[in-house]
Every structure is written in structure tokens, then in C-alpha cells.
């Protein structure tokens, strides 16, 4: 009998390990992006893109009582280029202000990029050093956040909004947060 039990030992050890893995999967060892969900957006005050027009972008803009969208973009980021028409479309709908966070970009590149692809952001903050991006937990551009009227982050989308993502993910989420009351 003892001989048989030894053959069971590897299985038991593995099952214990598997339980740990299962628990481990529910935790993110990196900066947890969801940690910011339902937390107030980090404090920041960014100038506009150097040489560009329009106001800068700061935390105060997100606390005006209306739901808003923050889109992190950069001219060097190809998926941003892919999603930009969708961002323009969302902004033109007029249901929410869409703010841009220009992440680690050269001012002249960013301006040329916006000139070419259209600028429909309500305001853009230039985060040249990427300092604000770190606070927001940005780990790849593009990323899009939905903020409620009190300035709390309610939703985060990682990657480009392409295909039917605007209709199936972003817009329903905006409506839901708008309907949910602030």
C-alpha cells in the first residue's frame, strides 16, 4: 500500500501547484490596470502641444459633471492611426467630450499628424515625458479611458478602437455610465 501512495505523490504536489496558479492568474504582477477603475483620475495639468492652438488638459476638465473620454495617442503609433477615424467619429457625435493625451511625442510630429488626420479633440494635453501616462497606468498606446462626471475612471480600453469596437464596446459603455447617474 505504501508503495502505491508514493506514486500518488507527484499528482498531489501538482494539484497544489495548480491551485496556486489558478489564484495567481487572478492577480496581475504588473501595475494593475484595473486598480484605477472606479478611482479618481490621477491629478495632472498638461500644456497643449507646443506650437499648437487650444487649451491644455488637466484633471479639472474631467470634473465638469459630464461623462468624458480620454484617448491616449501618439504620432509614432501605427494602431493610433488606424483608430483615429473612429475617434473623430465619436467626437463628431457630440455625446461626450473627447480629450487627447499625446503620449511621448515630438510636438511637430504630433501637429503634422493631427493636421493630416483631423483634430476633433476637445482639448489635448502634451505628455512629452510620459510622466502622466505612468500615473494613468498606460503601458501601450492607444488606450482609451471613460471618465464619469466626478472625474472617476470607469472604464479602460487597451488597444485600437477599430472594426465594430466603437459600436459594441465604447458607445454602450458611455451610455451605461451616462444612464447610471453620477
Amino acid at each position, binding site marked *: 500500500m505504501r508503495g502505491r501512495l508514493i506514486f500518488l505523490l507527484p499528482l498531489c504536489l501538482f494539484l497544489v501547484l495548480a491551485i*496556486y*496558479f*489558478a489564484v*495567481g492568474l487572478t492577480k496581475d*504582477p*504588473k501595475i494593475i490596470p484595473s486598480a484605477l477603475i472606479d478611482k479618481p483620475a490621477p491629478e495632472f495639468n498638461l500644456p497643449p502641444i507646443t506650437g499648437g492652438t487650444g487649451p491644455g488638459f488637466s484633471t479639472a476638465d474631467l470634473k465638469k459633471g459630464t461623462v468624458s473620454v480620454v484617448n491616449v495617442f501618439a504620432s509614432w503609433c501605427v494602431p493610433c492611426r488606424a483608430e483615429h477615424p473612429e475617434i473623430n467619429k465619436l467626437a463628431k457625435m457630440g455625446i461626450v467630450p473627447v480629450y487627447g493625451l499625446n503620449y511621448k511625442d515630438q510636438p511637430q510630429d504630433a501637429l503634422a499628424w493631427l493636421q493630416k488626420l483631423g483634430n476633433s479633440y476637445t482639448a489635448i494635453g502634451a505628455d512629452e515625458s510620459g510622466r502622466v501616462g505612468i500615473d494613468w497606468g498606460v503601458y501601450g498606446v492607444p488606450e482609451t479611458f471613460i471618465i464619469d462626471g466626478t472625474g472617476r475612471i470607469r472604464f479602460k480600453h487597451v488597444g485600437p478602437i477599430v472594426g465594430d469596437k466603437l459600436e459594441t464596446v465604447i458607445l454602450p459603455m458611455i451610455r451605461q455610465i451616462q444612464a447610471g447617474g453620477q
Partner: protein
Amino acid sequence: MTAELGHFALILALFVAIAQATLPLVGAHRGHAGWMAMARPAALMQFLLVAVAFGCLTHLYITSDFSVLNVVQNSHTDKPLIYKISGVWGNHEGSMLLWVLILALFGSAVAAFGANLPPSLRARVLSIQSLIAVGFYLFILLTSNPFERLIPAPVNGNDLNPLLQDPGLAFHPPMLYLGYVGFSMAFSFAIAALIEGRVDAAWARWVRPWTLAAWCFLTAGIGLGSWWAYYELGWGGWWYWDPVENASFMPWLAGTALLHSATVVEKRDTLKGWTILLAIITFSMSLLGTFLVRSGVLTSVHAFATDPTRGVFILVLLIIVIGGSLALYAWRGPQLISTGLFQPISREGGLLFNNLVMATATAVVLLGTLYPLLLDAIDGGKVSVGPPFFNAVFIPIMLPMIAVMAVGPLLNWKRGDWRAAVARLWPAMVAALLAAIAAWALVTDGPLLGIIGMALAAWLGIGTLVELSERIRLGREPLARSVSRLTRQPRAAWGMTLGHLGLAVTIAGMTGAGAWVKESIQVMAPGDTATLAGYEFRFDGASTGQGPNYATTMGKFTVSKDGGRAIVLTPEKRVYNVSGTPTTEAGIETMMSGDIYAVIGDQGTAPNGKPGFVTRLYFNPLVGWMWGGLLIMITGGALSLTDRRHRIGAPASSQRSAAAQAAGAD
């Protein structure tokens, strides 16, 4: 169209795999020859289909088809052709496709070369192999489809991570996967043997070459990986105990143990249950490595884009494959009867000792790698177990094994005489003593480990040569007869000799580079000199240039020792156009005594107020020996693979038993 064709071929491969995973298994159980026979064409078909899928993805990369998301994310038109091709597996989705391609390759190899395997064993092996494949096809198709389209297509791609745009890393993943996935053969054979309830010498003779081939590839993969880390990360180091490195090292340790215990099964008909368990563990470690790298449960310098759904999928796969096989082992394992008995002091005893040490070492690396995860799971906070843990635990475990390694081959099977063996090892003892004294005299301020390491390397190296000279009866018979014996040594014996010799050389390299490395970091203006380990480094300035897809700053150093020959080093700092990521290309001159190594960094102000560059200079003693030793080990493995016994495969006895079995089934 190409993308859809590849996707379709992959789906077809899944269905072929499902058929191959079930019908031959049932056929083997019921003794249905026709069902068993379908395993071979199915395995070949599966390989063909995956090869088509892989070919399609490669074609998409070469033609820079940016309507495919995977190509957009990892390629760029300016990228040189070789990196367009290596970009195929330089990402999660593509590397999984490479994984199943290699899995199918091994399956088809059994189908093609397994003519002399007993039909039921062959059917079961191919079914198990295919069962694993089904899991991975589903994983790719459901969570990681490389053929996903992106509409509208962007004008250009995001480029491959610049760190991966390197010749060393271009071939690192295929080598590594040939190793990882190669161990699936040993696994499939182990499961098939558990189902059949029979492990014999013929089985071991079949498993050994597959394990050996996988081991050679894995060794090459690990070697390439550490070589890449050495010259590309620019820190002069070659092993960081990073989770991803450990993920490749654990199967290597377990696989090395398996290689040795399979010898015992083949020669002495014992250690069967243990060998089967090792085969399961070795492949489990490969799967575990995949899980750790892809799921995002651990952070690593080269983590893939992680996705929790992928993590859950792989975990379920892991539980089914590893849990299922260990359950089967718990059920059927006790029925494997070993007949060979042996004394603790014997060749078997030595190999068992090797196995215990290797298994312990695997467990230690596993524990160190998973410790942050385990602690996090019980809310113990986020910690990282770094090189200090591994160096403090792993090295002491390995030291006694190296010491025994020289003695083991001199012991007889069944019952050995260790006194006689040690007595014959006197040249090795003298060599070890001399090496220790030399190490102590040359590097007076070095750590104790440096002296121990050198002594052990000499002990093992000379000990291995002593064993060889015993085998050819050098000095006890006329020289001509010894030479003729030498030329008639079986290639498998050469494999052992070269394997152990290579390890001795590698240990010397690791000791030198690990214990005696010299480094200095400073800001140097053009014309400045710095002295390190007796070498005078003169910085001649830096020039800028343009590569195919990067801008480069190339520094120039002229290095000389005692007014001798001047060596020019040209380290580069590259900034890749698309991602803006900087990489370092170290300037290295390799010599027998070590590498002189220079890295150029950011601009800075030299102590004398002139503008200059941050430079890091290293002298890495003997570091080239490390990779040289690996090459010797791989050569030994490859030589052993060409041994006549392996080529011919199962001997007559298994043919007889196969015939007897077939007769019994009728």
C-alpha cells in the same frame, strides 16, 4: 486570401488531430489494426497542414501584408528580410504556430521512421502526441489567431521589438522549441507505456534518441539565448535567472536526468517507474514554461503580450495534460516491475545520484521561479527572488554532482568498487589541485567559489579523459592497439565523453566569468583612456550613421595590453526608427583568456569637462569557454545520435515481442 488559407489549414489540422487522437487509441485498445494504422497517414497529414499554415504566415510577413493584425504589430517594410522571417515567431501568436509546427514535425517523424515500432505502441504514441496538439490548436484558434485581419490596413507596421532584431535571437526560439516540444516524444512514449503497462529495454532504446535530440536542441537554444543576452543587453552578464530563462532551464535539468535514467532502463531494466515519471515531468516543465511566459502570472524582461483568457486556457490545458498523466501514473505506475537489482555503489547508483541531484535542482529552480507567485497568492506581498537565491542554493547542490560525475563512469554496473575508481582518478586529483593553486595564485582577491569551480572543472575534465583512457586500455596495452580501440569506440560512448568534457569546459567558463569579472563605468571624452584588468582602453570618439531601420552611434575603442597588438572595438547604440527604442550592441573581442567588452551609452560630461559618452568596460575571463563547452556537449549528443544502435532502432527482441503481441491479439 493567404491569411484565410492559413487559417483554414490550421482548422483542418485540428480536425485531423482530433481523429488521430482518438481512433488509433481506441484501435490499440480493441486490437483493431485498421484504426491503429490510420495514425501514420494522419500524422503526416497534420504536419503538411500546419506547414501550410506556417508557410502562409511567413508569406504574409515577407510580403508585408498589413491587412493582417499580427504582421502590423510585428513587422515593418524597412526591416531586413531575415527579421521579417524571424518576426513570424517573434510574437505570441506566431510562436505558438511554430510550436505546433514542431509538434507535428515530431509526430510525423515517428510516423515516417517508426516502421519497426510495435504497432500498438506506435498508434498510442501518435495518439497521445496528437492529443497534446489538439489542445494547442484550440488554444491558437480560440485565443491567439495569427491570421486575424485588420481593416482598414495601415500603411506600415509597428516593427518587431528591436531587441529581437538580432541574428542570435532569430534562431533562438526555433532551437528552444525543438527542445521543448521534442520532449513531448518522451512524454508520449511514457504515457503509451503506462497504458500498455510495459516498459522494457526496447522502449528505452526508442525514447533515448528522441530525448537526446530534444536535449541537443534545447542546449543550443539556451546557449543562443544566453549569448544574445550577453552581447545585446549590454550588461556583460549571460544568465539572469529570469523566469523565462528558468522556464527553459527546468526542462533542460529534468531532460538531462531523463537521458541518464533512460540509459539505466535500457541497460539494466530498472528505475522504470522513475524514468516514466521523469519523462512526464520533463515535458510538464516545458508546458509550465509556456504557461509562465504567456499567462502573465510572472513578470519578465521578455514577457509576451499577456492576456488572462490565454492564461486560463493554458492552465486548463496544463491541468488536463499534467494532472491527467500524473493520475495515470499513480494508477498504472505501481505495475511497472523492475528486475535489475544494484548496489548503491555502482554505475546505476551513480546515475541515480545524478538523477536525484538534477531533480532537486529542478525543484529549486521551480521554487525560486514560482516563489513570488506563491507568496502573492496568499497575499504575502509582491517580492522577487533574484540571482542571490539561485546562486546560494543552486550552486551548492550542483557541486557534489560534479564531483561524483568523474567517478560514476568508472564504476561497474550492478556493483562497483569506488576505492578502485578513485584510485584510478589520481591524474584528475592532481589536475584539480594544480587548477586550484593556479586560480588562487592568479586571482588572489577572488572569491572562494572561483577556486572551487576551477578545481572541479579540472577534476571533471581530466577525470573524463581518465575514463576514456581506461576504456581504450591506454598504457596497459601496446599503443597501436589502444589507438585502434579508440577508433572503434561506439559513437554513443563518445557522446558521453564529449558531454562530460563539454560540461567541464563550460564550468571553467562560468567560473571565470562569474567569479572574476572586472568592470568599470565612466564618462570618457575622445582621447581619454581607462585601464581595466591590465588592458588600456582608449576612446577614439563616436560617429553617427544610418542602418536599414535604425540610426546608430558607433563608438571606437583601441585596446592594448602592455603595448602589444591593438584591438579595435566598435560598440554601437542604436535607436530604431519606428518604435524609438534604443538598443546596445556591445563591442566584443573574444580571446582564449576572456572577452574584452565595451558598451557605449548616453552622452555625458567627462571629469575633465569635455563632452563625452558614458562607457562601460568589462573584462570577462574565460567567458567564451562557456559557449565552447556547450558546443562540445551538443557535438557529443549529435554524435551519439548517429550511433548505429539508434539508427537501427529496436533490436530483434522487440520485434519478437511485437510479433508475439500481434499473435496474442488475434
